[in-house]
């Protein structure tokens, strides 16, 4: 990716980071749509021999030969039996029955995680720079499990099975489904065994935001990643006939509109369809849009599809307006006609101008790349949000990483919009989603693994979370672009990843497979269900009081019951909940003091002890947190933050309270 390394501080003094030869020992497995092996991002110049631990293969298939792999792309496999069982045999004229990426998504995610450095990268000149993966010297192994018709659980499970056997160190899955119970979810099942074998698993949180409770991949042995913006955007300027100017976003690279104003029309007034404002296929009246700029509302079909609909109807340009759902979020797309994506406020202003003027006119300028955009990061509107509906006692998402307008490798098989009519071929594309933020964390986890080969997946996740930042340098909370309000731990988890700090976290929250077994017992899983997930015989002890909140997690979610009204009401006794946590020292000897900041007068928070001293590495110390919460109306939420600091390291944990 370009810009992300700088934004994340990866370009700081090299001494911060593990030597490339150590990073070269780490293998990132990516379950996705495959890869386009000819990409420069898979160049292996300067890489040493493939790690001796590697047992993977380069599976051949349609236009994918054994020479498609090299010392960067060291493994490539494809899994299509589940897909073909559901959809019938793959039509090789439509998609490659091989690890070759016909879609672009897999090339993008794998080069984000571990692409080699490529100078002079850009998309039509936008986002220009040196594109590098988060762990540019790590190795990549692709496991193609997603096809034109989707990604099927039996294929995903087979790929995870193979990836662990092959010897990956990190697994990256930018995919998800509904959140069924853990023992019914193939990703959760596969991730449990992967974690048990020391493999770090990161998954995208989903794009169901800003709705609350919209998360995917919430298993506590998975790192669940939300999406934030960078300090970069791609502004275009909309000028209206009344002289007003607005800023939008676009990656349109063709002939710009002239400076002279041309007629502008709102799609709803140029269609016979009741949902005409959405610019759905075949809903625009060519006689009413020819040669004009058309204002379309987001929703219903893809953003790039709307541009095609306007272009096919003879429109000269498109303004794509956010509705309330997406607020001021502006995603840039490589449209096929002059276009501008604008926030809700701007969209409403343009629509009211159109309805108030007899001959409304406008024009759209050419686009550029702008750096240093503040405030950043913002939480992406689409980033799925907590609370964790499957297990409210585990706070998710875990953290956020860059996921908006990310440039990375792309397939040579389709154009940047993915539309059939888009015949452009690009080596890099700019797209958005938690699919993009997940591989950022996967690559950063690979860096941590290289620097600390003995760290468990839980320790890596803890280091990434407790060092994440939830406020700007001004002290204000990271903003949520969909509301313009400060974000909460249900939006950002522990906050935005901060790799340089994660390399030296001071203290960490480790978790062993036994801890996860205790978690399953606290879920009242039967021994059968535990065996499905773990393949182990494990009997929950009858005389142990297993509690979900006792899982040694780097964050806290306190789910409180609102007393029923008949017994509740005035004077209801407060609820007291105790959590235990164990910290492991990963730094020099030091003494840490705890501090708690809370936005909520309705919860008292006590920590015992208030100071912890560590004399040697890997020494463990425990503490308890007692929450005394007064009754609140059902549906109430409030947040706090607990931090251990020795003046050099800040070990931060978000706390979320919900009353149900």
């Amino acid at each position, binding site marked *: 990716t370009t810009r992300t390394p700088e934004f994340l501080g990866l370009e700081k003094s090299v001494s911060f980071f593990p030597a490339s030869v150590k990073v070269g020992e780490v293998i990132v497995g990516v379950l996705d749509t495959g890869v386009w092996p000819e990409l420069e991002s898979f160049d292996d110049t300067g890489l040493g021999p493939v790690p001796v631990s590697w047992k993977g293969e380069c599976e051949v298939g349609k236009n994918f030969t054994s020479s498609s792999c090299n010392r960067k792309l060291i493994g490539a496999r494809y899994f299509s039996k589940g897909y073909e069982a559901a959809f019938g045999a793959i039509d090789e004229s439509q998609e490659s029955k091989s690890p070759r990426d016909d879609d672009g998504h897999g090339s993008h995610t794998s080069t984000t995680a571990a692409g080699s450095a490529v100078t002079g990268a850009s998309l039509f000149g936008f986002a220009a720079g040196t594109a590098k993966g988060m762990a540019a010297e790590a190795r990549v192994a692709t496991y193609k499990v*997603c096809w034109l018709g989707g*990604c099927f659980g*039996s294929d995903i499970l*087979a790929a995870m099975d193979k990836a662990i056997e092959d010897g990956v160190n990190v697994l990256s899955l930018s*995919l998800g489904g509904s959140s069924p119970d853990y023992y019914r979810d193939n990703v959760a099942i596969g991730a449990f065994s992967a974690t048990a074998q020391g493999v770090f698993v990161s998954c995208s949180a989903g794009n169901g935001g800003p709705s609350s409770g919209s998360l995917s991949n919430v298993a506590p042995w998975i790192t669940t990643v939300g999406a934030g913006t960078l300090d970069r955007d791609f502004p275009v300027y909309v000028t209206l006939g009344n002289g007003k100017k607005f800023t939008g976003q676009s990656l349109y690279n063709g002939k710009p509109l002239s400076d002279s104003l041309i007629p502008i029309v709102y799609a709803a007034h140029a269609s016979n369809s009741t949902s005409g404002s959405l610019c759905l296929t075949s809903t625009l009246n060519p006689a009413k849009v020819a040669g004009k700029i058309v204002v379309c509302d987001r929703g219903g079909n893809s953003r790039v599809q709307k541009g095609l609909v306007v272009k096919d109807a003879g429109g000269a340009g498109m303004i794509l307006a956010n509705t309330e759902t997406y607020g001021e979020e502006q995603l840039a797309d490589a449209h096929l006609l002059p276009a501008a994506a604008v926030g809700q406020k701007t969209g409403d202003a343009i629509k009211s101008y159109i309805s108030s003027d007899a001959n409304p006119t406008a024009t759209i300028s050419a686009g550029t790349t702008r750096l240093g955009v503040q405030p950043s990061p913002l939480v992406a509107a689409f980033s799925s949000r907590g609370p964790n509906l499957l297990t409210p006692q585990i706070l998710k998402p875990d953290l956020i990483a860059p996921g908006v307008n990310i440039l990375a490798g792309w397939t040579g098989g389709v154009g940047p919009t993915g539309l059939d009519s888009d015949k452009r071929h690009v080596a890099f594309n700019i797209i958005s989603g938690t699919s993009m933020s997940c591989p950022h964390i996967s690559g950063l986890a690979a860096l941590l693994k290289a620097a600390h080969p003995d760290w468990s997946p839980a320790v890596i996740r803890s280091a990434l979370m407790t060092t994440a930042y939830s406020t700007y340098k001004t002290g204000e909370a990271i903003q949520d672009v969909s509301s313009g309000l400060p974000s909460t731990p249900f939006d950002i988890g522990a906050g935005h990843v901060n790799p340089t700090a994660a390399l030296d976290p001071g203290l960490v929250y480790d978790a062993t497979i036994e801890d996860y077994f205790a978690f399953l017992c606290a879920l009242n899983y039967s021994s059968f269900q535990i065996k499905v997930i773990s393949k182990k015989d494990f009997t929950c002890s009858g005389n142990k009081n297993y509690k979900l909140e006792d899982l040694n997690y780097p964050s806290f979610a306190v789910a409180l019951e609102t007393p029923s009204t008949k017994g509740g009401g005035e004077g209801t006794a407060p609820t007291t909940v105790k959590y235990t946590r164990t910290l492991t020292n990963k730094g020099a000897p030091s003494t840490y003091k705890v501090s708690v900041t809370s936005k909520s007068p309705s919860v008292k928070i006590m920590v015992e002890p208030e100071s912890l001293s560590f004399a040697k590495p890997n020494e463990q110390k425990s503490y308890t947190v007692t929450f005394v919460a007064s009754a609140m109306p059902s549906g109430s939420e409030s947040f706090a933050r607990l931090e251990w600091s020795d003046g050099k390291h800040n070990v931060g944990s978000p706390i979320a309270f919900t009353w149900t």
Partner: protein
Amino acid sequence: AAQKKKTYIIHMDRTNMPQAFDDHFQWYDSSLKSVSDSAQTLYYYNTVAHGFSTRLTVEEAKLIEKQQGILAVIPELKYDLH
């Protein structure tokens, strides 16, 4: 509709494999054949799960679930790229 097949993931309890079988693949195949002559195994799982995947009717899925050593018969889920 009753004959319509879906993909299931069959989780097996390897410690419960009947003595008659030399290895668990034989046992899996025999379990499958006992409910369907035509069903093929899509994948065997050895590392992150113990078991196999196959296409069965709802009826066949119910039948196989009753067999010795079957931990769970879980309908395949579809996932989407994010």
